[in-house]
């Protein structure tokens, strides 16, 4: 299906989806909810611990339990659950599921067969316990990890998340660059979008592939030149406000008792998941 659609439609769809996602996330991040109120630094630390727990745990049930924890947290943070579940799992089966599918069979994962599909003298095709488990591990781990990452992003305004990253000893200049890159990505996305739309409005019928590729090279180059030009201007704007290559940041985060409580609870749960 996807291949049928033209590259312009796909590109526009991708760009629009990206822009919409960003706007919607920002809305959710401003709601009043459990995770929205958690100190962002605490959130970064606890979510990393939970991610690690998902990755380290060797019990499928434990990973499932961690998934229910993310659902609980999402619910308490007033994230629409239907949206949250769909957003994670609709993409998952398409990629990880497909990747994991062959692993079910004894060809890729030898082990005890539970369902034999084909049995002759020389050929034996079966789903193995090990295969089933490994595929489940993969799909669950990926799904729960994506849920966790999504949850932390949905409940934290991007700018706050950026500042919280400082707690990971990330150099400030990286954080500055990261913030600017994100901000200008939107500007360039808008530019790219209007290029595609302008092109679409002028195109009747099919264009040969070669011509399309030339057009893309031209517009990507235009975008590249614009990026460079903008960077020079932005540099001057930064310079005129005293920039000397050092990023200065002011974080006004204050840990509340409730932050400690939630932080400790989530960390304990992560630890428990690993030890169990």
């Amino acid at each position, binding site marked *: 299906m996807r291949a049928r659609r033209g590259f312009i439609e796909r590109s526009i769809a991708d760009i629009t989806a990206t822009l919409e996602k960003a706007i919607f996330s920002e809305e959710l991040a401003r709601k009043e909810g459990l995770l929205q109120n958690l100190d962002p630094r605490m959130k970064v630390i606890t979510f990393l611990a939970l991610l690690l727990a998902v990755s380290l745990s060797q019990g499928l049930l434990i990973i499932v339990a961690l998934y229910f924890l993310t659902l609980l947290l999402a619910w308490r943070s007033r994230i629409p659950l239907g949206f949250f579940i769909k957003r994670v799992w609709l993409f998952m089966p398409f990629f990880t599921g497909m990747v994991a599918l062959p692993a079910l069979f004894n060809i890729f994962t030898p082990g005890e067969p539970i369902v034999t599909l084909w049995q002759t003298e020389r050929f034996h095709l079966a789903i193995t316990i090990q295969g089933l488990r490994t595929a489940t591990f993969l799909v669950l781990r990926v799904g729960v990890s994506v849920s966790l990452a999504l949850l932390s992003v949905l409940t934290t305004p991007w*700018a706050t998340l950026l500042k919280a990253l400082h707690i990971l000893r990330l150099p400030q200049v990286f954080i500055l660059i990261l913030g600017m890159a994100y*901000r200008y990505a939107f500007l360039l996305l808008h530019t790219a979008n209007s290029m595609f739309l302008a092109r679409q409005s002028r195109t009747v019928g099919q264009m040969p592939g070669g011509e399309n590729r030339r057009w893309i090279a031209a517009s990507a180059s235009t975008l590249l030149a614009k990026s460079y030009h903008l960077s020079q201007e932005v540099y*001057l*704007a930064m*310079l*005129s406000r*005293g920039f*000397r290559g*050092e990023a200065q940041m*002011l974080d006004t985060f204050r840990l509340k008792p409730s932050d400690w409580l939630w932080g400790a609870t989530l960390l304990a749960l992560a630890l428990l998941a690993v030890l169990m």
Partner: protein
Amino acid sequence: MKMRKEPIFELERVSFTYDGKVTALREVSLAVAAREKIALLGANGSGKSTLLMILAGLYFPALGQVRAFGNALTEEAFKDESFAFSFRRKVGLLFQDPDVQLFSPTVWDEVAFAPLQLGLDQEEVVSRVEEALRLLRIESLRDRAPHRLSEGEKKKVAIASILSLHPEVWLLDEPTAGLDPRTESWFLDFICQLNEVGHTVITATHDLDAVDLIADRIYVLSEENRLIAQGTRQEILSDRELLLRCNLTHEHRHRHERLEHAHPHRHPERHIHPHE
């Protein structure tokens, strides 16, 4: 002018070319005293933005002398940290394109950028940011991403980001471009107030109606990038021939009651003149 003081800016036969190819200024000389209200008037491409960049210590001409606050303004001079620090602190530049000027993740960070870069302590930074947000009545925008604001809001944030620097000199590049009428008149008022409380304001523009309000003295740049006239507001604005020659005004046909005819003309203003 009440008192002729030492000029704060002095340009002597300054010429500037981009990449050694495109000429932006030819032998421009001017002098600006403290507390003056000045306009650099010229059509697009006349070099007025370049001139502002030179005054802001961002471009350095290969030919001619630039002096500011009694010091030569050269690339070399800016290598001296204390000179760079004091100059950047005194001079604020409003860029024509707010997308260039607004590079931070939130409005608050944007306004805090200059005070933080200048190494002010935390309390001072916070109080300056709050004051700037309050003066421009944009407190409600504090957590918004600058790139998602309307053009008028962007302009206000850009102004606030300079206001928090507490500069003595304001350099404004086409400040009314892209503003709706109400924001525009508010902004022209703001510029006048700045000047009344003792700031030097230098505005580059081609908007003759704005000039009427925000300049006591006017320098006119020709399309050949030369300074071809200077004088008081009255002298320059009454010289229709000059304005026509510099592509700052135009003739077109229009109607006065029943008569249709052509003459040099400025738009929003009502004009009265005798008809035969």
